[in-house]
């Protein structure tokens, strides 16, 4: 037998590593005008009108924004009301015929990626499908106020609505980007999801899809015919890594150039700041986290909740929580305590008051007023022999909520409330939440830019109002705000928020910014809060 030495395989491994490392370096140098973005979700169906149900993912929505251009985009203020705060995209301009009729004139330079012009017929075709509840139930519900979309010639489209309301332009432009009718009108609507178009979509956007490698990445190439100017970044690779640690590793190892949502955990910041080739960019997020108080008894929904139906108890919990401290502990400076159910994405937050500070003395007074005393000196308040114990449900998949739940538990113990934290698997948590089987639920939602969505969670008959919070005054204010029947709509929206804060149906805890990491070699970097990489077409590459 030959004499074996451990040096031999080690030397072989090092040689292979060095050789392959050199090969990789050569491969990377050949792609100066490209970017590798690492995300958590593989886009599978990035086609407007098909992104419903399971296909309604951030990955699909963001890729669709690279492939398909909307009629107009939200302006920097993100204001969804009115006709002025939008920027022209496929539509060169728009005018109003009356309070229920909007007219768009398409940009004559606009082309599909196969060279065909974008016409009014494409827009009509798209909205026929988008408004069909059998094809796109979610979109049809969002576009319910729209009564007709018609073409006047090749370049003019007319939208008609059932009633006047401030978000007509938003509805016409935000929810569905036009599809190429010349390629799709021969495909039955129900067959489109299985057609070859999904794998090789032809859009009007700044990038076209080159290939999609399942579970790994999607490759895009700049659209040479893009009428607003060919993007300087010629190739875009959207790389997929479901695990947050793997995403950070891809970025730190130089295998990726950009990443979203690097915080929390906060220690990621230290790691990324150590890499001088990266910069961090905070952007308002559509996320909102809150403790939702069940207004009904979880065991008998016909009865009010034995503890939480009392507004003084709910207010005491809100004031007993040091929300500013909780936010700082988990997000550092990259989040704030919201006033009402408003994420940083919603334009109405700019005029809203500041959230209340931690007031434990006032919280104790409210609880005492409501009849809660510590009669047995065990540190937990009680009333008629019943201790003030509440359960807090949360999914075990959310590290943010887990960390905050423990902080809330400790803070509420200081005012005599015992919070039992119940972590559960996501599907179990979701099932219990939707059935109203909870005392306090740690909810996190993502919001559309429109504040109209608040009606779903906070009106008496709202579709996602699982805690059955109901205040007719809030309903009335919401209707007025959504319909824009007031001279000063922002005043009504603020009144909605004030009433919700006064009723305390929830303790609104965090409204974070998403922190993006981007390599310094990219210039003119702007990131849209609505769709992360939408403005990639405007980025430049340093020489």
């Amino acid at each position, binding site marked *: *037998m030959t004499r*074996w030495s451990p040096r031999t395989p080690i030397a072989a491994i*090092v040689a*292979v*590593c*060095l*050789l*392959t*490392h050199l*090969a*990789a370096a050569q*491969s*990377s140098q050949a*792609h100066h005008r*490209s970017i*590798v973005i690492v995300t958590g979700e593989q886009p*599978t*169906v990035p086609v407007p009108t098909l992104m419903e*149900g*399971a296909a309604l993912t951030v990955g699909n929505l963001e890729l669709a924004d690279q492939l398909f251009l909307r009629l107009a985009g939200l302006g920097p203020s993100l204001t969804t009301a009115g006709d002025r705060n939008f920027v022209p995209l496929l539509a060169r301009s728009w005018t109003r015929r009356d309070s229920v009729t909007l007219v768009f004139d398409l940009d004559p330079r606009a082309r599909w990626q196969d060279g065909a012009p974008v016409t009014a017929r494409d827009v009509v075709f798209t909205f026929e499908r988008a408004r069909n509840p059998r094809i796109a*139930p*979610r979109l049809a*519900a969002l576009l319910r106020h729209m009564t007709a979309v018609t073409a006047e010639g090749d370049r003019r489209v007319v939208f008609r609505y059932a009633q006047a309301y401030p978000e007509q332009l938003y509805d016409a432009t935000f929810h569905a980007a036009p599809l190429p009718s010349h390629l799709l009108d021969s495909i039955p609507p129900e067959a489109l*999801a299985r057609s070859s178009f999904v794998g090789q979509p032809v859009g009007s956007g700044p990038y076209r899809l080159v*290939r999609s*490698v*399942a*579970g*790994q*990445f999607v*490759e895009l190439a700049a659209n040479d015919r893009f009428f607003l100017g060919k993007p300087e970044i010629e190739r875009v*690779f959207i*790389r997929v*890594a*479901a*695990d947050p*640690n*793997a*995403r950070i*590793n*891809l970025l*730190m*190892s*130089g*295998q990726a150039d950009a990443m979203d949502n690097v915080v929390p955990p906060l220690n990621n910041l230290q790691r990324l700041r150590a890499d001088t080739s990266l910069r961090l960019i905070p952007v308002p997020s559509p996320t909102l986290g809150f403790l939702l108080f069940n207004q009904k008894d979880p065991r008998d929904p016909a009865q009010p909740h034995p503890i939480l139906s009392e507004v003084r108890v709910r207010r005491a919990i809100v004031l007993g929580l040091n929300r500013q401290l909780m936010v700082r502990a988990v997000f550092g400076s990259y989040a704030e305590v919201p006033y009402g159910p408003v994420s940083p994405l919603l334009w109405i937050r700019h005029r809203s008051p500041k959230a209340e500070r931690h007031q434990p003395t006032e919280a104790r007074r409210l609880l005492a007023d409501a009849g809660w005393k510590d009669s047995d000196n065990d540190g937990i308040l009680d009333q008629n022999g019943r201790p003030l114990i509440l359960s807090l449900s949360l999914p075990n*998949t959310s590290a943010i909520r887990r960390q905050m739940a423990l902080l809330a538990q400790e803070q509420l113990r200081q005012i005599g409330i015992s919070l039992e934290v119940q972590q559960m*698997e*996501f*599907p*179990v*948590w*979701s*099932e219990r939440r*939707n059935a109203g089987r909870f005392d306090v639920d740690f909810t996190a*939602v*993502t919001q559309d830019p429109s504040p109209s*969505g608040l009606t*779903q969670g906070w009106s008496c008959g709202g*579709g*996602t109002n699982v805690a059955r919070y109901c205040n007719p005054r809030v309903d009335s204010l919401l209707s007025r705000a959504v319909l824009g029947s007031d001279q000063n709509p922002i005043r009504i929206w603020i009144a909605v928020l004030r009433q919700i804060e006064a009723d305390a149906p929830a303790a609104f805890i965090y409204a974070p910014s998403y922190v993006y990491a981007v390599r310094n070699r990219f210039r003119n970097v702007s990131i849209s809060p609505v769709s992360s990489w939408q403005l990639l077409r405007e980025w430049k590459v340093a020489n």
Partner: protein
Amino acid sequence: MEGGELSSWVVRRLVDSTITFALALTLAFFLMRVAPGDPLARVTEGRTLSPAEVAALRTRYGLEQPLIRQFGSFVEGLVRGDLGVSIEYGRPVTALLAERLPATVLLGGSVLLLNFSLGLWLGVRQAVRRGTAEDRWLTALSLMGYAIPSFWLGLVLAWLIGIELRLLPAAGMQDPLLGTDAGFLARAVDLLRHLVLPAVTLSVVSIAATMRYQRTAMLEVLQLPFITTARAKGLREQDVTWRHAWRNALFPVITLFGLWLPLLVTGSVFVEAVFAWPGLGSLAASAVWGRDYPVIMGCVLLVAGLVVTAGFLTDLAYTVLDPRVRLA
């Protein structure tokens, strides 16, 4: 062993394996459905869906049907080779499995190769050099490898080799920048570079286990009289070790092989996550967390198939390799 005897044994074992396989699938089907948790949770998370939309989704995935009818539909589909549509991905399960299988086979195959080449070789070397310094430090090394948790090792290797030294990719299965026009060699090298860290991470524990098993088995065989006879006949030490002793010391390792085979799918969940390796393990884990019943059943089908096949192959290997083993 007579040919006819072997044939009837194979038929009997095939029938047993089929029954085991069917039972495993049936149990998995019903147990998953009686467990709490809404399979539409991820689809409807944070979104406003009317009761009619939720009902439509339930109808689409057959979730509103009685359990026994759902099982009937599953079996019907299985016979046709149709495992249904994933609730989370909205795509046929067979397509999802087919996309993920090559990555799993590649990683699992590499781990098996590393395990049963390096592990066996080192185990034999240790036994032959029993009590030497090499045996002692290889023992220490194997015990250390056995004690290291794969998830920790994966994180450390990704950080050290991938980030700090940048010798190998920290994650992924291929360099997207390599382009479709790259030659076969460039692609193969790229794939190899990405494979090294996950394969090493998964292999360390299994190599350590194989070394320990092989060393013990070899030590037992090396003390048997036929080895002394072989040496007395003047055979070279290499022939004594590999032709006579090793063949007889293989049996415990064959059992180990049967146990490792299914673990290559189910045991790589964390390593796939750490290295963003697009295999079946992460797909299965994500399906369980999201109660994606069709995908879970697809993965159970594969794993149950592997378990049954591994058991069958192990028994077959015993009977073929060792004439002393009687067919029962």
